[in-house]
């Protein structure tokens, strides 16, 4: 039982990261119906920038308190990754708005290839290890279950961000604009909502959450490489689909589920086939619940 709880905690940590990335996929999909394939690489870019900020802090300033360093890494990475995502949307997706459905998908794939290779060219192909930022952990009283501090950081940061994000989507005018664009873009435009700006902001918000996910990923694993965008990206997209694409709570639920499946499968069966398990469960869930766990079934209008 202790083993199970321990593995579940590990799974939830991993799942939080997937959930944060998945929100970016699901929001973009909800609003313009496009799979943003470059999102995984935006996440990787965020992690890289966080790594460079960390190195810059240690090189130029020296001993910065860990909390401050993490906060700085997250905030600067968020801002710059948001800027990247805004630029990407502007250059590669907006010109194709209103074109046929596969066109932005292809530019997104092209952007994904370009981004990962750009990072490879500018930063070199090798893995980038950083020294551990957060050490130690606590043992739950009377058991052998340990929770590492870095896991707690991940779960707390995710929870705080999700709360802020929930507030943003449900209580602010930007969130209202976003939800209205999701329901009916044409009607929203007729009612005076700046649709292009709303879509841009959606991309920026998704990228910001991905940047935080990247920072947490870097803190947790302590290493990042230019290829690290693909697998978390695909997993997060899987999570978004599993939870029902277009649904924000669905993305988080899906992310946590994928994380749990991975951790428990590795613990009880085989670590080699953990991705196979995650993908197979996706296929099985979709066969029985064709629109995901929390997704609304698609209504066909003739």
């Amino acid at each position, binding site marked *: 039982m202790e083993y199970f709880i321990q593995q579940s905690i590990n799974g939830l940590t991993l799942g939080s990261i997937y959930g944060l990335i998945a929100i970016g996929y699901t929001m973009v*999909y909800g609003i313009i119906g496009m*799979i943003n394939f470059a999102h995984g690489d935006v996440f990787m*870019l965020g992690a890289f*920038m966080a*790594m*460079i*900020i960390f*190195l*810059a802090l240690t090189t130029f300033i020296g001993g910065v308190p860990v909390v401050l360093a993490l906060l700085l890494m997250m905030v600067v990475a968020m801002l710059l990754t948001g*800027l*990247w995502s805004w*630029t990407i949307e502007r*250059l*590669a997706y907006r010109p194709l708005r209103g*074109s*046929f459905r*596969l*066109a932005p*998908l*292809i*530019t997104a*794939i*092209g952007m*994904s*290839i*370009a981004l990962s*290779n*750009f*990072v*490879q*060219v*500018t*930063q*070199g192909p*090798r893995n980038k*290890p950083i020294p551990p930022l957060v050490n130690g952990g606590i043992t739950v009283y009377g058991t052998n279950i340990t929770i590492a501090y870095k896991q707690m950081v991940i779960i707390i940061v995710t929870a705080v961000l999700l709360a802020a994000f929930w507030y943003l989507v449900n209580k602010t005018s930007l969130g209202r604009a976003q939800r209205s664009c999701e329901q009916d873009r044409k009607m929203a*435009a007729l009612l005076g909502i*700046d*649709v*292009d*700006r709303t879509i841009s902001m959606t991309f920026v918000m998704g990228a910001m959450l991905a940047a935080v996910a990247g920072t947490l990923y870097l803190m947790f694993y302590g290493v990042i490489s230019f290829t690290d965008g*693909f697998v978390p990206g*695909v997993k997060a997209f*899987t999570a978004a*689909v599993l939870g029902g*694409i277009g649904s924000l709570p669905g993305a988080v639920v899906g992310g946590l589920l994928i994380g749990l499946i991975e951790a428990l499968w590795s613990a009880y069966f085989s670590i*080699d*086939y953990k*991705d*196979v398990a995650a*993908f*197979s469960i*996706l*296929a099985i869930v*979709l066969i029985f619940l*064709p*629109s995901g766990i929390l997704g609304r079934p*698609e209504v*066909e209008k*003739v």
Partner: protein
Amino acid sequence: MKPIVDIEPKESDSVFAKALKEGLVAGALALGLFCLIVGFRTEQNIRNELILTQRWGLLAIFVAVAAVARFLITYTAPWREERKKTRRVVEAKEPSAFRKSFPKIGLGLLFIYPFLVILILAAYNGSMMGGLQGSLKYVDNFGIQILIYVMLAWGLNIVVGLAGLLDLGYVAFYAVGAYSYALLSAHFGFSFWLLLPMAGIFAATWGVILGFPVLRLRGDYLAIVTLAFGEIIRLILINWTVVTKGTFGISGIAKATLFGIPFVPGPNGFAALLGLPNSGVYYKIFLYYLILLLALLTAWVTIRLRRMPIGRAWEALREDEIACRSLGINTTTTKLTAFATGAMFGGFAGSFFAARQGFVSPESFVFLESAIILAMVVLGGMGSLVGIAIAAAVMIGGTELLRELEFLKLVFGNDFTPELYRMLLFGLAMIVVMVWKPRGFAGSREPSAFLHKRKMVSGEFTKEGHG
């Protein structure tokens, strides 16, 4: 959203001011984007710690290029508008004689291509042998490599272009074909000609097995499941080491033979039997014609199927699934046949790939390959065979050419490796081409069904289906 009426700049001064402002903004934006990722470089030192090196010069170049480019684009905008207005509005006209006969000319060129290369190189080197050896690279790297992708893209075109199902895991079928050839020839010693159809059948079977449960799904759900399937196949190939030897791959795969004549040096080899000098190039030329014929088979089947009820059903499905269902077409079997037919050609290409390389490993079947093949289908203009072939030739030939650009070393110094920039340029080119021509290279297509007279229609009228 853009304001409906742009405030027309009247004087060139205001255009200049506007361009200057936008250039500065673009420069600032570029500074923000690149300040960390270009301004610093991380390197490992001897103790495996990361250290930062600063590259402000490079960053300045990036910012300057962005600013100047933006400035020029805005500054020349009125002039380009003017030119666009004066250009005659061209109505959709009948294609010229060259365009009409382009497929025939292209086909003829493809058939004589290896000999053309040998002759040119022989003339260049002054000896027949020099021509033979020199042609290896052009026949293999360019000819065969491009034709494999043409065949794969034509195979995927059946699924995506005709039936409108978005398949992101096409490379899985390619892998199934390649591994079934590699394993069956290694364990049972079957010949290429037996295994070629078998590989196709295996891949088609996998297509049916995968397709049966998931074809109920629509659009992007189908896309993600096919992507997942592609990854599952690859992960199994990596991890099932007892059978597949994992990441080491299977090497020493038997070569294909021509009516039982092997392509080996020695008395029984092809060269000795025909009394030709020994060379590896005959096998390459043989493979070239083999893949050319296989690709043409794919094209022929596609063209024939489009005229048959099943092909009509595919295209109808792409245009409107609900209408299809109400007219009594069984959408599940229709989708399944498209999926299986596409998979079969992927399997053929896979077994050819294994015979050509003599080596297969999971490295060759990553998602990037599926993405590239899909990009060819879309850039080629969904459903247009010639367009897809051109897209494949440009994309693969272009990236192969980048390997050859040795002269760039003279410009950028000896440390410059063009190979490193190959995929970066590839990705950027995909974006640029798509933004520039969203409907692909072939902007028009022949309709499958028509009244009175076959007329070219704009690609804009083709729907892409919902999966």
